[in-house]
């Protein structure tokens, strides 16, 4: 009951925020937080089936470029771009997924790693189509939205709400249970007749849909997309949001995405120290809370000091 109340309060606070402050900077930070949280949440869908993706930024990029290109070259309505972006990312996931999800998880990581690299190189090189290193500029705003940042803020919140709702329901549904089963006991799941490859690809596709949709949103918000927005390092940052928040529970990526995005902004005034502080933060969390920020609640008593010379395979 108190959790429901907490969620309602948080939602109310977020919704009412623009009435209190219309500082575009903080609205921007919150919109970016919503983006990062959603990316981390969708990455977690894959983690639920036991695989880690190192190419999430590229999937977002697929959506972003698809929508940006359609809007700037073909004059399509940007609203249309969001589902198109999602669909494009989905198509990539289907192809890549069926090729690589038949194998052990670690290889999937590497395939996504390679894919991200290929995506970056192609976007960077194919100047005639993708605009090359400086990317696509002059991407139109979403038409019909009132001017200013506040409408984007509400749109971002709405999308975030949708993301959370859909992913939570999925996780709790029949499909979600199968995903966990595959993660924990793949062979057994197969013995029961579950087509594990199909469900793994389904997870990949689900994560891709959200990555692509948010990519399109990003394109029409920033109005500029460039290959450097979607590098392997960006994919690693998405992993960070998930891991630092806590990959084991649903709320982990939400915590991680929001916390890391906001902390980055708070420490910005330290100038060149930003990287150092951020790095120290990552290290501290991993040293004391390897399960992520969510394990703060589980109690500091659960911090274990592993004595050496015990076999830990």
């Amino acid at each position, binding site marked *: 009951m108190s959790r429901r109340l907490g969620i309602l309060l948080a939602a109310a606070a977020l919704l009412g925020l623009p009435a209190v402050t219309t500082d575009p900077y903080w609205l921007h930070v919150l919109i970016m937080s919503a983006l990062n949280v959603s990316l981390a949440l969708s990455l977690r869908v894959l983690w639920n089936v036991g695989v880690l993706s190192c190419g999430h930024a590229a999937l977002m990029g697929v959506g972003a470029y698809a929508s940006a290109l359609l809007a700037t070259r073909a004059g399509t309505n940007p609203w249309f771009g969001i589902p198109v972006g999602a669909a494009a990312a989905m198509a990539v996931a289907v192809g890549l997924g069926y090729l690589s999800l038949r194998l052990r998880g670690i290889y999937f990581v590497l395939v996504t790693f390679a894919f991200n690299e290929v995506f970056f190189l192609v976007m960077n090189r194919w100047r005639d189509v993708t605009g090359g290193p400086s990317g696509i500029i002059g991407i139109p705003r979403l038409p019909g939205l009132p001017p200013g940042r506040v409408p984007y803020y509400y749109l971002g919140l709405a999308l975030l709400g949708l993301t959370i709702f859909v992913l939570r329901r999925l996780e709790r549904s029949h499909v979600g249970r199968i995903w966990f089963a595959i993660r924990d006991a793949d062979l057994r799941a197969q013995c029961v007749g579950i087509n594990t490859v199909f469900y793994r690809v389904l997870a990949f596709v689900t994560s891709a849909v959200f990555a692509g949709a948010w990519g399109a949103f990003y394109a029409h918000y920033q109005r500029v997309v460039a290959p450097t927005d979607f590098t392997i390092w960006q994919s690693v940052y998405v992993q960070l949001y998930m891991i630092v928040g806590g990959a084991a529970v649903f709320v982990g990526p939400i915590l991680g995405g929001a916390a890391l995005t906001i902390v980055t902004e708070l420490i910005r005034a330290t100038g060149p120290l930003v990287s150092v502080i951020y790095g120290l933060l990552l290290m501290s969390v991993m040293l004391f809370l*390897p399960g992520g920020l969510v394990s703060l609640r589980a109690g500091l008593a659960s911090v274990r000091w592993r004595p050496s010379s015990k076999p830990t395979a």
Partner: protein
Amino acid sequence: MALYLQIAVNGVVISCLYVLVALGLNLILGIMHIVNFAQGTMYMLAALTLFVLNVVVGLNYFVAGLLSVMVIAVLGLVMERLFFRRLRGQFLPSLVMSLGLVLVIEGIAWMNFGIVAQAIPPVFPGVVRFLGASVSRERLVIIAAGLILIAGLFLFIRSTRAGKAIRAVEQDPEGAVLQGIDLDDVTRLVFMVSFTLTALAAVLVAPTLALDPSIGETPLLKGLVIIVLGGMGSVTGTLLGGFIIGFTESIVGTFYDPVVASLVSALFLMAVLIFKPSGLLPYRM
């Protein structure tokens, strides 16, 4: 003819460099099953330490080089004890930990570095020309030293007790413990050897480079590609992977350009992963 010879020579040089760093990464990945992003940072620190000892303090290149390698090896032990020991076996947290280390170390390095890149005076100046191809003496030394190091590592892993202990842990940690092998000892050894290899690579290459805190990034990325290509945990695989990538860069880089070469490497990597996921020469140390 001269062109092809030059391409071949270029390929060998590039390969040797990449292989040395990749071997360091591979040991840690194969044994500890963790990705150590800080490998590139160690490469950079080794080069910068060499600079300080050689140019600022004035020590002879060989002495400075040896000291630098020792410093980095010790650093490896310290890191293992302080940061990685606790996270043994936990893939995700060690990933984040190594990333944090990279940010902190490189961040501090940049804060203290000026805006002018540094350089080490050449140790083996001069160029050797044969049959129309040319190679600087410095690079010939790199090839020779690199090959010796690789052979040395091979012998170490194959023939010495310590090397066999490492292989045992890699294959089956519990079984190894049952045999009386101390896991902590092996872990320490692996970190030390890995960092030593990387530091040696840096010390060898440093006279040919302009030094600043960003030089570790490319060897790290290439190293990752190579060990995946060759098969994680496999020394021969790393060798093969390194030479494939090195020659791809040389051949494709010459006939097209380095960007296309990277693209080809990445696509080749994807293909290997999809069709032969364990790598080209898996599990053969």
